[in-house]
């Protein structure tokens, strides 16, 4: 029962969703919209599960004084602070348990949650992602020194697209006569994006789509069972 009943559940809901596409009338369309609403609610709990798991992991590291436990304590405190602020005074236009916190917002310039979001979360997020610019440059260098035909193709395309999408591209080949306008770097970048890039993206979409359809069918029919986990 512990394994077969969930498989039956997955089969039934999967078949109902599939049938609703071919029978767009009651009760199928209603069942699907209800299932989609349930899906959202259960997803909310799934995210909550992830957060509880994060708290447990951090608490374990702090309690057992594992290496770098102090940083995990900082993470846990920042989590608690943001969560409490959000629950007490809400976010943006949404009020929290204590209302909109007009008094505290007048002191801070915005709600405490939004203040932390603007002055801590946003800078951290943007800086962490901007840090990748340096690692991408390093990866590009390593790709370039491989000197295979494929890696050269990749790098040349990347350079054309980067130059073609910035003002330097217009400046470099702006002097070309009208008969050679195809070789104007921004036009070349447009051509690459419109044709070879679209072709490869389509191939990826079609292939991935076929893979997803196959996997979905395997899940609905109960052939794919890995999501059930172990035998406990």
């Amino acid at each position, binding site marked *: 029962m*512990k*394994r077969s009943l*969930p498989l039956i*559940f*997955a089969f039934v809901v999967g078949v*109902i*969703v*599939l049938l609703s596409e071919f029978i767009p009338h009651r009760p199928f369309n209603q069942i699907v919209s209800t*299932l989609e609403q*349930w899906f*959202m*609610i259960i997803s909310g*709990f799934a995210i909550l*599960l992830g*957060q509880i798991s*994060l708290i*447990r992991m951090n608490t374990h590291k702090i309690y057992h004084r594992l290496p770098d436990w102090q*940083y995990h304590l*900082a993470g846990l405190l920042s*989590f608690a*602070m943001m969560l409490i602020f*959000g629950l007490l005074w809400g*976010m943006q236009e949404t009020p929290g348990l204590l209302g909109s916190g007009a008094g505290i917002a007048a002191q801070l310039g915005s709600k405490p949650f939004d203040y932390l*979001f*603007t*002055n*801590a*979360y946003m*800078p*951290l*997020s*943007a*800086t*962490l992602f*901007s840090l*990748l*610019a*340096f690692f*991408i440059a390093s990866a*590009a260098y390593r790709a370039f020194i491989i000197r295979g*035909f*494929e890696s050269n*193709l990749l790098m040349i395309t990347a*350079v*054309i697209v*980067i130059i073609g999408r910035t003002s330097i591209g217009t400046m470099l080949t702006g002097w070309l006569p009208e008969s050679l306008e195809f070789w104007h770097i921004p036009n070349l970048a447009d*051509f690459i994006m419109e044709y*070879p*890039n679209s*072709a*490869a993206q*389509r*191939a*990826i*979409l*079609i292939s991935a789509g076929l893979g997803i359809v196959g*996997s*979905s069918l395997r899940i609905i029919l109960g052939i794919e069972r890995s*999501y059930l986990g172990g035998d*406990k």
Partner: protein
Amino acid sequence: MIQFMNVFGIWLAAFFTISIFSFLYKDNPFYKFSEQVFVGLSAAYWLVYIIYSIMIPNLFAKLIADFSGNAILLIPATLGVMMLMRLHPRTQWLSRFPIAIMIGTTAGISMLRYMKSDILEQVTATMINPFAAPDTAGVIGNLLLIIGTITGVFFFYFSKKQDGIFKVPSKIGIYFLMISFGATFGYTVMARISLLIGRLEFLLKDWLHIIQ
């Protein structure tokens, strides 16, 4: 007070920005601290966001407003609680039921959605007359589009070993994929560089007032 908090906010943002950039030199306590603070803030942000945008309007508000009329919502609520049972080894198996419903729903929706948008529509868009383009570049482009799509799909066909004559279209497919990865790489570089410029602008303009 508000002015002080504004300045404090800028200094806080500057501290976190420099702490993260310090990783470029080497891993250090400031980076580790900022990284963990980011993890904490990020997790709490999404939790609060989910509570206000999904849980309250779709579940709690409806149950509070009209409990008997929305009693059916107790089913997903129970399934959600069963999902949390995953945390305890003894009750872990209960989480299979909500997972099965989520996976089954996702499988059904994905199967239809991807069949339509990613397979049929893409195949239809590729079935064009390449010579109908108004200029030579368009004709060449259309030919490239057709050849690239077919050879690209051929490359992803793993059920048969691609050697001999089958190696040629597969190789051409790889070339098209490399061009696409190059274009994606170029865009990623530009996006990251623009973020970097944004952070440097913040440091030099908002924090240090060196540039106007």
